[in-house]
């Protein structure tokens, strides 16, 4: 089982990339996607727009939570989980992620569903220990940093790369590189390449801007499901190839 996490600035397209990748990977592997965001919308396009109960919702409501309460099957058999979070403005979202992950461990979620690959879609920047949870030893093996060429996105990306470097001594995940989600800003590739270099990272993949992605999302679907023959869908198939070859390389 290989585990990878996607980090990046809020609104940069992590959930879009993660769920499209999950849909593309699901043709070849058993995939689990875990949304790590209090908004709990990471897996919504794999579930036809259905919002599933989150781990933290269920922990609040039930004395005894089972896997059946928090794990749902989506498009292509993708196993979908949302960690959830506190009521906006109160509580501690970071501790929420830790608690949700501990609950999944306690219920032996990975052992029961035996995914080949687990994708963690993590909220925004690494603002506290809780948001670093998916990077910790035993969770993601590799972190991909999603960014555009916009200044604030690159700023967040270099913060995340720095956190990964700092955490290396703790045995945390390795930095798999930048994924450039193009917004078509001026000199986007050069600016991103420069930021990646400064962060001792590489741009490992570029996702082009396609109106079909938005169109699919309006239908509560991934582009892989809604427009399987489109160039946009094929791009995610290529990303899936890259992810698989990257972890085969790592295992080797």
């Amino acid at each position, binding site marked *: 089982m290989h585990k990878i996490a996607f980090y990046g600035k809020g609104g940069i397209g992590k959930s879009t990339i993660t769920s499209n990748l999950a849909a593309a990977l699901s043709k070849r592997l058993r995939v689990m996607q875990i949304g790590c965001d209090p908004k709990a919308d990471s897996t919504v396009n794999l579930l036809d727009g259905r919002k599933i109960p989150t781990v933290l919702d269920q922990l609040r409501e039930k004395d005894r939570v089972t896997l059946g309460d928090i794990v749902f099957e989506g498009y292509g058999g993708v196993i979908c989980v949302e960690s959830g979070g506190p009521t906006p403005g109160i509580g*501690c979202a*970071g*501790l929420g992620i*830790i608690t949700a992950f501990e609950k999944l461990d306690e219920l032996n979620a990975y052992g029961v569903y035996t995914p080949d690959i687990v994708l963690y879609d993590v909220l925004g920047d690494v603002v*506290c*220990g*809780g948001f*670093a*949870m998916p990077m*910790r*030893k*035993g969770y993601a093996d590799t972190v991909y940093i999603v960014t555009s060429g916009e200044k604030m996105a690159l700023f967040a990306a270099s913060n995340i790369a720095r956190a990964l470097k700092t*955490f290396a*001594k*703790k*045995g*945390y995940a390795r930095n798999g590189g930048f994924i450039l989600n193009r917004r078509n800003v001026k000199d986007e590739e050069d600016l991103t390449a420069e930021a990646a270099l400064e962060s001792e990272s590489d741009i490992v993949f570029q996702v082009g801007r396609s109106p079909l992605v938005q169109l699919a999302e309006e239908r509560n679907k991934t582009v892989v499901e809604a427009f399987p023959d489109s160039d946009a869908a094929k791009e995610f198939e290529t990303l899936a190839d890259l992810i698989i070859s990257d972890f085969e390389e790592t295992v080797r």
Partner: protein
Amino acid sequence: MAQLCVYLPPFAPDYSGVCSALFEMNALIMIHDAAGCTGNYTGFDEPRWYGSTKQIYCSGLRKNNAISGDEGVFINRIKKALNDNPRPDFIALVGSPVPMVIGTDFAGFAAEVQSATGIQTFGFAVDGTKYYTDGYYRALKALAECYAEDCPRQSGVVNILGATPLDFSPDEYERMVRAVESGGKTINFSMSGGIAQIRELARAEINLAVSESGLLTARYLEDKFGTPYKAEIPGFLFKRQLAKTNALIIADRVAAHAIRDRLGADAAIGALFPQSAPEPEFAEDIYLPNEAAIIKEVNSTKYDTIIADPLICGLVKDGGKTLIPLGHYAVSGKQGQRQSLALSNLIRK
């Protein structure tokens, strides 16, 4: 509110169990807390601490450390503490409630300390919400995972698991050891064991689980090495004769069963900790998860005799019941020892 303790102190928590299991070893132990938990362990849960030079440290976690998450300051404190004993066999970082709330990654923290000091380091993500039984088990499991070798079983060798001052006084422990040795057995690991004995845990032909802590550990070692185990306190003999027989015994589960066996009476057993092992003889124990449940049970008209820690005996309202106070350090510490017939008075001299 059912979890609230109005009359009883909180029982010894998981971090005390970790420290208690490691106390006799050549280890540097740091409890990651502001001082309260370290004080609770050294002041209330660890009779061996008084006058000892053992390296039990408090990390001195403060609000600003919690906010910044900078573990470098603690690593420097550990390095300084190593001046007192530059060569411990290992370092143990022991959790408490505050690190749990701020999401400290003890495995990562331990990896960093190990990299900075070159000394094997264990991180125990305990948080004070479980009992010492769980802490003891976690400590022994971590050491066994790291050091224990799959060596051949040797006839006549035993490990004594779960013997700490939280359940046994020094006299009781000595009698236990004497009983095993006078039976012609050799003890590998016991309360005084170190890394050398941990390495050879698998050498035992049988593990003796002398308490709930020991049961958890014995089950783990059965899974890991196939070593069979017995829940038994060697040399245990209850001298008291009871005229009435409707007794309720509230104690560590293994001790409670040993008392009932010696009584030869049809006594009920109240267990303070969740059942850890599938032993069929434990199936009818009454689990008492909180003070309210304990009060209800000790005041039930079903019983005319209560054998329990003196603080628990103090919860009995009916003056007509026979009370036999039995000090349990994990429940009442020094206070209970003063007020009770210690277990040592009840077992064979």
